[in-house]
């Protein structure tokens, strides 16, 4: 009898030891990965405060006291207009996000609430083009924008956002689950017009989906480099990612501190937004993956 307990006790003991060992390993790996995510940014922020000569000598995670000097050097570089780039990006990204959300909501509402002859065909079309990346048609796009006189304006960066098949797809899936048609019906009986029902009833009910998608559309537009480099050519209209590419120019060859400071400026707004909304964003990523 005592023999059995003994065996059982030893087995569970070694099992527990194995679990603890495994958990320790997992924590070590996770801490390493977290550090890996942070390290490059840490180097960047720290180097933004160090003198260029010092940066060239060694890697250090101790902040220096040259932030003001680096800032001044950056100010003197006429072609790195950070505030301008920021405003340009804000204008482009917020307009694109608003347009994309509103039109996608309209489209999904049309597909979910009304039954019309081409409904299935329209949805199938959206599914088919879902995966066509805009990059493949960039030459035709460029040619068209050139003919329309829209080169070096923000329109080519904003207007196409209104047709995002993936956002429509997501909104439709969400709407199927969260907008009971009885409510639309009830509004109709109460004499609400179709557009009014859409604006006042459907849109508020879609708030969670809108919020999640808004972040991803905004960030996607903000981070886009390919389309702006094709259609924007005057520096006054450069968006943030385009400004970053200026940092490679010879002017900044030895001003390491200034380069890191400029980079920090481009990254900092996203950092702040991300850490404020992180929980929300993570659940949005999970939702998107499962829904699709």
């Amino acid at each position, binding site marked *: 009898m005592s023999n059995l307990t003994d065996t059982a006790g030893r087995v569970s003991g070694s099992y527990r030891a194995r679990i603890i060992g495994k958990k320790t390993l997992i924590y070590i790996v996770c801490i390493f990965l977290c550090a890996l995510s942070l390290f490059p940014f840490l180097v960047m922020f720290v180097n933004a405060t160090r003198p260029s000569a010092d940066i060239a000598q060694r890697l250090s995670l101790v902040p220096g006291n040259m932030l003001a000097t680096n800032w001044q050097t950056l100010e003197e570089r006429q072609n790195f207009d950070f505030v301008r780039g920021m405003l340009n990006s804000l204008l482009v990204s917020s307009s694109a996000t608003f347009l994309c959300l509103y039109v996608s909501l309209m489209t999904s509402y049309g597909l979910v609430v009304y*039954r019309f002859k081409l409904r299935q065909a329209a949805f199938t079309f959206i599914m088919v083009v*879902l*995966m066509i990346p805009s990059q*493949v*048609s960039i030459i035709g796009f460029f040619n068209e924008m050139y003919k329309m006189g829209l080169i070096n304006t923000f329109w080519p960066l904003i207007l196409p956002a209104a047709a995002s098949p993936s956002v429509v797809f997501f909104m439709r899936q969400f709407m199927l689950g969260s907008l009971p048609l009885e409510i639309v019906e009830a509004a109709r009986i109460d004499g609400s017009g179709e557009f009014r029902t*859409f604006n006042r009833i459907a849109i508020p009910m879609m708030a969670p989906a809108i919020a999640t998608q808004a972040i991803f559309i905004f960030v996607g537009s903000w*981070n886009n480099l390919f389309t702006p480099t094709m259609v924007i050519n005057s520096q006054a209209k450069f968006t943030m990612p385009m400004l970053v590419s200026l940092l490679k120019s010879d002017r900044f060859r030895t001003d390491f501190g200034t380069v890191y400071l400029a980079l920090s400026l481009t*990254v900092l707004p996203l950092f702040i937004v991300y850490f404020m909304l992180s929980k929300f964003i993570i659940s949005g990523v999970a939702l998107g*993956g*499962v829904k699709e």
Partner: protein
Amino acid sequence: MSQATQVTARRSRLSRSRLEKTYWGYLFIAPFFLVYAIFQLYPLGNTFYLAFQKYMITGTNKVIGPNPVGFNNFAALFKASSGATPKVVQVFINTGIMWIINFIPQMLIALLLAKWFTDTRFTIRGQGAIKVMVYMPNIITAASISMLFYALFAFPQGPANSILASLGVIDKEIYLNSGIAATVAFRFLEDGWAVRLIVAFINFWMWYGNTMIVLVAGILGVNPSLFEAAQVDGASSNQIFHRITIPLLRPILLYTLVTSLIGGMQMYDIPAMMQQQGSKAKDMTQTVTMYIQELVFEGTKDYGRSAAVSVLLFLVTAVFSVILFYIMRDKEASRQRKMMRAARKEAKL
């Protein structure tokens, strides 16, 4: 009246009233299709059209064409100079290599983390914080991240070289003497394979968190009673993972694979930012989209040939999309079949 008939009655009432408003459906979907036609469909058609035209602007701003030339643009692209790989093939190879070196570790790490985070024998504390940290690079501008790595791998004096010096891989004494540091420091950005690895690493580093979160959500979405049943039957956690989790995750895994592949084929920001002026590494790290851009921005602006490369990229992407479309359609169809079966069962009761 049984529940099923009630549901049918309600449905037919709804569809009748929807039919009355049928034109509203067209109104609601019209803006999307209008914008899509103008900004995506027409450009796509135009790209296909230009691919079969001789259309260029010479260095002296002389416009030639567009004149139809059949498959000449494609033929010119594939004509290799003196037995070398044609550039168009090389850029596809480069893109593919950089994608695959990023994707394999990305999937492995994501799967491993997902397995750990969903293991029923123990709970990992701070999962939320870990997810926030590893997902973070994904949200930051790829151009900024690439420029950051560009600075980190600078020659002769960048942090990567400093670390190698302090580790003793390169001679510290010589390295710290700025006059002759260049004789020992590594020229990372001028080595094709080094740049490929850096680009792949950045891609991996930006995306494995995203993949992991999607996989964790997928695993949590599996009916927990399946895991419990397996556990009661004495399956080990490895067995559960290989025999239950992975097969059930197959649609999500395939989805991740195909979307990553399609996204990877368009790779632009990171490799474009990693190019050092005049570096030999370019031949090994130029991607398809970079080549498309180069053809219309550098030297003679050859729209026809650039469009031809775009068409090739479209075809490759289309093949992957079709695969994905079938995967997703099958999923939808099987769900519908299941619902039909349930409805039939209910009707019998």
